[in-house]
């Protein structure tokens, strides 16, 4: 009887071991990055405007890169800001276009490195944070905004949140925004932040100047109804980061393709529709002003914790 039980246990252990080996064999490829399996390059996009507009804008770029690189390149939306870093890991992305502050956070949290940064039609590769109110509100200083409703993009945006915090500290306001404002809404995107103030859901808002300028072109009310009361210095915007572990030929290939787009007629057309004129090389040192802004705003980027759901 005992022998039978031992034999049965042995049999079960052997079956379990075999199953484990098989599972490991089956699951092992799933843990590999897309680029390592030779299937595709999956790049993330942070939601800084309407995600569908953003995705439509990036699809021609993906097709161009696929054609030139010989490897399928796809984009995916990283949904909400709080989840960007975790989603990057979960979706096993090979890289992502990060915003200003998310670039700094990604560099600290993920094993990624900056590759290129887009240059706008206006020749700028940077953006500035703006704090705006409605024209008719009579508000013009940050101190006047105490107890008002604020619409910010997200805690991990430099232009949509960090600059507001920095500006408050700069103006001697040490309070947390949640304490200073009666309501702080994380709108999730810059255009939502703009439209929150324009629609009266908030009295003050923070957003990226380039997004606001784009909205002003499409909607004259943005130009006529809103007033900017503070503007940050130029900050490196929309930077493509790639995983350090990505094969060097792929990394260099992507960098070369994007930086040489302006020399190719097809590339120029795609760049124009993308809203850029060029891609330039990006370096980690470009983000020194952001790190300084975070530091002086009391944010430790190494141990950054998202305090909102």
């Amino acid at each position, binding site marked *: 009887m005992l022998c039978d039980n031992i034999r049965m246990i042995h049999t079960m252990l052997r079956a379990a071991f075999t199953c484990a080996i098989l599972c490991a064999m089956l699951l092992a490829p799933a843990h590999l990055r897309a680029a390592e399996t030779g299937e595709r390059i999956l790049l993330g996009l942070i*939601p800084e405007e*309407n*995600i*569908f*507009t953003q*995705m*439509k804008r990036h699809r021609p770029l993906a097709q161009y890169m696929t054609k030139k690189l010989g490897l399928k390149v796809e984009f*995916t*939306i990283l*949904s*909400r*800001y*709080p*989840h960007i870093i975790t989603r990057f890991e*979960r*979706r096993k992305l090979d890289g992502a276009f990060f915003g200003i502050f998310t670039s700094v956070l990604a560099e600290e949290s993920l094993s990624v490195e900056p590759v290129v940064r887009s240059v706008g039609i206006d020749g700028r590769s940077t953006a500035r944070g703006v704090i705006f109110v409605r024209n008719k509100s009579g508000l013009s200083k940050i101190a006047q905004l105490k107890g008002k409703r604020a619409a910010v993009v*997200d805690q991990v945006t430099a232009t949509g949140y960090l600059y507001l915090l920095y500006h408050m500290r700069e103006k001697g306001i040490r309070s947390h925004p949640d304490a200073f404002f009666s309501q702080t*809404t*994380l*709108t*999730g*995107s810059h255009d*939502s932040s703009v439209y929150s103030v324009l629609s009266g859901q908030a009295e003050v808002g923070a957003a990226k100047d380039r997004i606001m300028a784009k909205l002003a072109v499409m909607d004259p009310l943005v130009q006529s109804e809103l007033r900017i009361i503070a503007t940050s210095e130029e900050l490196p915007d929309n930077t493509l980061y790639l995983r350090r572990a990505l094969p060097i030929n792929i990394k260099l290939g992507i960098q070369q393709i994007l930086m040489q787009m302006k020399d190719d007629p097809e590339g120029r057309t795609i760049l124009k529709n993308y809203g850029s004129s060029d891609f330039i090389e990006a370096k980690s040192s470009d983000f020194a002003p952001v790190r300084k802004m975070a530091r002086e705003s009391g944010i430790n980027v190494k141990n950054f914790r998202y305090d*909102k*759901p």
Partner: protein
Amino acid sequence: MKSKIITSLFILFSIFLAGSGVTIIYLYNTTSNLRSVIDLHRVEIIRQDLVINAQTVQAHLYSFGTSFGQELDVIVDNVINLDESARKCLSCHHEPDMAQKLNTMVNQVDQYQSALSQLITTSANEERVERMRMVAIGIGTTVLDTVQEMSLIAGQRLNDKSIRSLKEINNSRIILIITLLIAFVIAAGIAVTMTRQVTEPIYELLDATRHIKAGELGYTTHYVATGEFKELVDSFNDMSMTLSQSNTSIMRHLESLANLYTVTLNFHSLTDESEIFRELSYGASDLVGVDQCGLMMLEGDEFVHTYPAVGVDREAARMIRFPLSAIEPLYREHHRAYIRNTDISSSPTGEVDSRLNVRNMMLVWIRQKGRIVGAIRMANKRTGQFMPEDVQPLAILANNVSVAIDNASLYLDLKRRMEELKDTQQQLVQAAKLAAIGEMASNVAHELNNPLTSVLGYAQLIKEEEDPSAIAADILVIEKECHRAKEIIRQLLEFARKRPLFIADVDINAALEYVLNLGRLQIRKQKIDIITDFAPDTMIRGDENQLKQVFVNVVNNAVQAMQSTGTLTVTTEATDDTVTVKVSDTGEGISPEVMEKVFEPFFSTKKEKGTGVGLSVSYKIIKNHNGSIEVSSSPGKGATFTIFIPRETAA
């Protein structure tokens, strides 16, 4: 006909064009409707895409929480497809009410995208996120309702369009069939009419050609045609008439040539000028058909009419005389002939012509060695006036007359010269005879002179001598010389005597063997070699003794020609008709001067050894046998006598 064909084809083409035009319009409408139907089907596909995309997104919104994972890509893809489908719908041409509905739907899709984007990207508390989700679901439901409503409208239109398209297809089919039927009937009518109009004149012309082929040149068809066929019929009739006229002309020319040939043929056999003039006058008169015709020849400074002529008697002929000075300008001006059909009195020959009641007149020149020597004068053409085509046969006739006159003149000259030659020949023969007799007499006299001289000498000696023995001896010499003279006279008589031939079979080879045996002693004495080469079958019919005498003479002659040694060659050759004997020696040969006289009687180069009669007798015997004897020789290389004897000797 051409205009009828063009008109018919134009009508046919117009019917086809009209039918095709109507059919094309129907087909265009039909295809447009079908295109609309297809477009509506495409819209339906798009609508289904819209519904599927919207339903997929809605399902995700219902089933998932606020934390979007991998399904976010599905939502994004579906919403973008939804947006693209909606905008594709809007980009097509639509009626205003439908365009408005599509605009509404696109706006709804935009709102749906905004609501979804906000829901996906906003970090807020659950209550707010749930509120945003309900807003998005609500807009999605509205989009689905709008799509459904549009689907119903599109379905109704699809049905309407399909019915209309089928109706138009049916109409276009009927129109096409009617067009084809009408075109077929009209084409058949045109074909029958045209065939009849084309074949009738062709058959008429075919019948006419059969008549012409059968020899009815000039046959014309009386078929009444119009247009091009009238021209064709007229042209055919003209052609037939022209053929007939050409044929008549050709026949006339042939007849003229035949007459010309008949007239000219006689000229070449005539040697008398008066006969030539007669033949010319009658021949030319028949050839052209004139009342007066005759030949005028240049005599001194005048062209005189030579009688006999047609329509001109001796009296009139004497009257017709034209001075050279009057004719020469006409000859220079009119190269071949001078024709005067009217106003005769003003002609250079008008004076004579007026007296002879001449209505019209033609002079055809006769030339010899580039100069005018005469003219054929013709007057009063029976069928009317003289025509240029009358000149051609008469010019040929004139040339032949010129040649005939020339020939006649040459003939007369030749005849005269032949007679002169004959007289000269007779004189020469007579002289030759006299010379031969003289020569022979000289030879005989010379031969007789020697013995007579001896006799005379010894006779004088006898008168002077006293010794009887000496006288007797002298008398013996005289006797001997007299015998010699007698022998000469005998031989002369023998030569002159005509001996009859005793014809029998003679073997020439055997006769030669006999002769050579007779002379063999003398031959041996002279150490002469004999070579014989006899052909077989040398039998002939002849006088054997006389032939042996010939061979003896020739062989002796050869032996005597060789002073000491030498070679005598005797050969015979035989053909069916003749036996040839050749006797050659290797002596000094015969000089050309001697060879001319070698067969003359009493000619000898052998002094006392011969009388010169042997070869002349041999020549005579061989001639009596109808044969011949020749001698050939080269000085210093001997001589060869060749005797040809016919196998059958005429008696």
